[in-house]
């Protein structure tokens, strides 16, 4: 009997499996501790103290909440940029989600050339280097009718790319003549002028929704058809619940994507690396991080009410 116990080397199978599992994930755990936990701790340290850089090194002196007070009351732009970015995000995210769901449903139908269409719709996600995005946005704005402050030089040189004389703004002005309520009109105008942003930011989301749509079992639709459900009912009773778990995923992705491209992070970056002001930069980044996490939390809670989990 003792021989058998010795052969087990003191570990049960499940313990051995646990050790192997930990070995598999060890790179991530080490990386997380070394680069994330430590970094977050240092960001906290920077944010609550005054940093002076000398050569390659730096010294910190604890000053409490001073940096945060400065961010909200002292800094000329930060509060404005922060609210602007957050508002943009809150407006953009639902638009992008609905747009990508709609497009995914359209692309999920069978028609000729849909592989090409899918490839094109995903293209913007590939072309997201800042320089490319800027150039494309510029040209696109001119195509649609120049609501962006494009330098006249470039306008002239690329008016070939379709610069129409009656731009989108003209039609928006026409809308003003219909007696729509001011706020409704503003939202429509906003949505229309954001259509570029929405289209170019939906690539990944469309693919994810498409994948979800493909994974719905056709027998569900068959049953609905036999029972005499209309297309409208089929959408709300089958399609929507089945893709709803992906709403949260897509929402998180969209919020983060629009946050990463927002002006507030540009400001954070400039403060940290342009002005070499570590403390204020760290405070900015903490504030923006916390506000985005807040938005994510509220939005995920709200969306998760809509989600149907299949188990």
């Amino acid at each position, binding site marked *: 009997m003792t021989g058998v116990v010795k052969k087990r080397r003191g570990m049960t199978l499940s313990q051995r499996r646990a050790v192997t599992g*930990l070995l598999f994930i060890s790179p991530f755990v080490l990386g997380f501790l070394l680069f994330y936990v430590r970094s977050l701790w240092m960001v906290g340290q920077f944010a609550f103290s005054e940093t002076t850089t000398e050569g390659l090194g730096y010294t910190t002196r604890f000053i409490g909440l001073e940096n945060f007070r400065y961010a909200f009351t002292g800094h000329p732009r930060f509060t404005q940029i922060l609210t602007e970015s957050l508002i943009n995000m809150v407006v953009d995210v639902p638009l992008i989600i609905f747009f990508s769901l709609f497009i995914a449903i359209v692309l999920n139908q069978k028609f000729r050339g849909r592989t090409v269409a899918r490839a094109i719709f995903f293209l913007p996600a*590939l072309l997201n280097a800042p320089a*490319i995005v800027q*150039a494309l946005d510029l040209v*696109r704005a001119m*195509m649609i009718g120049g609501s962006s402050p494009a330098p006249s030089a470039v306008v002239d040189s*690329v008016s070939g790319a379709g610069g129409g004389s009656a731009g989108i703004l003209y039609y928006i002005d026409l809308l003003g003549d219909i007696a729509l309520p001011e706020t409704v009109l503003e939202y429509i105008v906003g949505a229309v002028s954001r259509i570029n942003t929405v289209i170019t930011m939906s690539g990944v989301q469309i693919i994810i929704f498409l994948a979800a749509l493909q994974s719905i079992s056709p027998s569900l639709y068959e049953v609905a058809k036999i029972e005499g459900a209309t297309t409208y009912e089929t959408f709300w009773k089958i399609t929507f619940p089945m893709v709803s778990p992906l709403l949260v995923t897509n929402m*998180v992705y969209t919020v983060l994507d629009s946050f990463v491209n927002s002006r507030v*992070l540009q400001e954070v970056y400039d403060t940290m690396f342009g002005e070499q002001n570590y403390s204020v930069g760290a405070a900015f980044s903490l504030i923006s991080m916390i506000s985005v996490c807040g938005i994510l939390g509220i939005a995920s809670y709200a969306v998760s009410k809509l989600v149907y989990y299949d188990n």
Partner: protein
Amino acid sequence: MESLKQRIKKFNADTRMGNERQRIIRWLMGFVLSLFRLALIVGISYVILGPIIGIAFNSFFSNEDAYSPAIYLIPQSPTLERYSLMLTVTQYWKVLRNMLFYISSLSLIQIVVCSMVGYGFARFQFPLKKILFACVILVIVLPAHSVILPLYVTFRNFDPLGILSLITGGNPPNMLTTLFPMYMLTIFGVGLRSGLYIYIFNQFFRGLPKEIEEAAFVDGAGTFYTYLRVMVPNAMPPIITVLIFSLVWQYNDVFYANVFQISGDWALSKKLNTLGNTLSGSYRIIDPNISSLYVYAGIIMMILPMIIIYIFLQRRFIEGVERSGIVG
């Protein structure tokens, strides 16, 4: 000769024609819907492709074309001069070669590391598993900006536990401007969007049937051998997905390249960002009309390799996303 109105009335009233009528109505509805769909898809494709096509055509404009108001899209005297200058300004072939080596090695490491971590989370039970997986989610959710400053400071004075300065006896080495930080981060599974890749692999491995592993185990394969010879060959969809994402995002990355001051010899995207200044500074091309033409040529040269890779992998990529279990 009865009027058309009467004939339609008769047709509607005729019960024997009921099926026919419905068929026509359904066909009409389908036709209208597909017209609508066509318009929508063509319109959106135009918004996406229009600027790219515009840029591509404009990059062939000669100086006269750029100033001639009569020229629309198709240049009268096309020139390759933009491209020939851009090839020298950006040292295109050299940088492209460097970069392909750099980003493909990073992507390979991403695939190896993230698939291992994903497999570990998917198939093994160990203490604190839930908390550790929450850390993966945290890495996905926290933008890199929030931890970049400490990383910058760390790599500027790279001295883990004071070991390096003990060996060299002097100041700790400055790792900025080298590729070392990116490789470090990627090897430890916290590189550019590694969290997302870990998540993708985890979801996929969780969806694979346990039986294939058990069979390998019964046949006497070790855990690592099972992972390498049984799981990885089965994981082609997520591997393709992660490969494309990783190549593309790394290729486009400017943020990390700027923070870690990676030289333009390794980052085409960074070169493109400063192209306007380079042109006016070193080549005396100050006229914005003309210099934007050069920038367009640069953009086309930058996106071309990616488009080519995408065209080759596109079909498998979209299938890959669908089957890689992002959807759960």
